């Protein structure tokens, strides 16, 4: 009776311990963090810490975790192995033939690492406890931007000016047509216009219907546009793209698209 009663009790406490351990291992940021936390249980200044006792605490912690079949990250096991080695060095009398640092040196370094980590934790806490911008003290709310006016001054010399003018004038000399009157509709323009429209002219159409909008009324414009449109029609006929006909002298001149098969 008593046996059966005590076993479940142990099981429960073990399970609770295991759960606590899981939480704890998860909560630690690596072996050094765990060591620092364990060292706090010694309740002494980190400078007077017993590294030997700490090593034993760590090793028993790891043992317990292993008994509970907790998955331990490799670095926890590496630290355990190293602490076991350190423990043996601290316990055994120093062997003068052995090379490398003494157990005391290793222990001192571990103590230093722990103290440094603790110091940084403390510093971090102090830093975060400081008055902070946007929380305790504040920057100007209404800011005025510095308007960066970039004044650009442009320069040109008289030579630039004359060369510029010369350039335009020289260019003029090579241009076959100069649109130098408002009421001139060039053949180029007429050709351009008709090329765009001719595709639709399957039927005979008076070429006057190709005059651009706004050019029919003003006599000068009408004359220019008629002439250029006629010239353009001849050009298109020469290219074989249209057929052209006039039924009588002074009768309307008509064109139509030359059919592809015709």
């Amino acid at each position, binding site marked *: 009776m008593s046996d059966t009663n005590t076993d479940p009790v142990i099981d429960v406490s073990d399970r609770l311990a295991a759960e606590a351990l899981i939480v704890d291992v998860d909560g630690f940021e690596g072996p050094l963090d765990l060591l620092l936390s364990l060292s706090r249980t010694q309740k002494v200044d980190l400078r007077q810490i017993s590294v030997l006792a700490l090593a034993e605490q760590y090793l028993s912690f790891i043992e317990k975790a292993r008994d509970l079949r907790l998955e331990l990250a490799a670095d926890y096991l590496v630290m355990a192995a190293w602490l076991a080695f350190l423990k043996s060095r601290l316990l055994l009398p120093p062997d003068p033939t052995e090379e490398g640092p003494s157990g005391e040196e290793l222990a001192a370094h571990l103590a230093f690492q722990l103290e440094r980590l603790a110091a940084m934790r403390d510093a971090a806490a102090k830093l975060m406890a400081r008055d902070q911008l946007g929380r305790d003290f*504040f920057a100007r709310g209404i800011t005025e931007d510095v308007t960066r006016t970039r004044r650009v001054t*442009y320069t040109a010399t008289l030579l630039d000016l004359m060369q510029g003018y010369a350039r*335009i004038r*020289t260019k003029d000399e090579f241009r076959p047509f100069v649109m130098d009157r408002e009421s001139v509709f060039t053949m180029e323009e007429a050709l351009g216009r008709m090329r765009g429209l001719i595709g639709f002219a399957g039927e005979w159409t008076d070429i006057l219907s190709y005059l651009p909008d706004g050019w029919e009324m003003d006599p000068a414009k009408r004359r220019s546009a008629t002439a250029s449109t006629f010239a353009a029609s001849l050009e298109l006929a020469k290219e074989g793209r249209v057929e052209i006909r006039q039924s009588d002298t002074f009768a309307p001149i008509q064109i139509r698209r030359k059919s592809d098969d015709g």
Partner: protein
Amino acid sequence: MTDDVTDPIPRDPSPEQEESLFEAPPMGEQERMVEAILFATAEPVTVKELSGRMPHGCDPAEALVHLRKRYEGRGVALMKVGDAYAFRTAPDLGFLMQKETVETRKLSRAAVETLAIVSYHQPVTRAEIEEIRGVSVSRGTIDQLIELEWIRFGRRRMTPGRPVTFVVTQTFLDHFGLESARDLPGLKELRSAGLLESRPAPATGEPDDDEDDDDDQAEMFDEA
């Protein structure tokens, strides 16, 4: 004259003071509070808002009066904006909020050509400039030349549509060291100076600029 602070006779506490559990901070503190709030808030703050943010029993209106006095003649001033208050740069220091960098650039080709045409053909309409250049003239180019004060609007042309004309300015003449636009070398001179290819002008019937221009320029410069 005694003021509140040095008054040796304690005044009777007003009903408000009795009511409020916590005494309002001294006026100097209130002034600091208003100063900090106005400094840090992103927009002007009303007296009501100040009241709402300051401890019970504060008198932000009075604190504002003190604060305004304190900032008199300073680099920033306490300004009333509508029914709210804000710190603003003292008006005379506005120039500090600007940073001017001067950059010299060469005038674009389009602008040089447009300017050349205006100077040789003034008064000239935009359509005429385009005709001469053979390409359209962007509004930006004209604007730039006007901004540089090198060209300005001349009289409207008395033709249908009454288009505006452009003429060069005194600033233009000064910049290019010209007494008048008539001093600009003509095409023949440009050619003989090697600035034009020595090719005879085609018989397009284009008038040599001199005569035509003279008329127009006479129109332009005789006014002065």
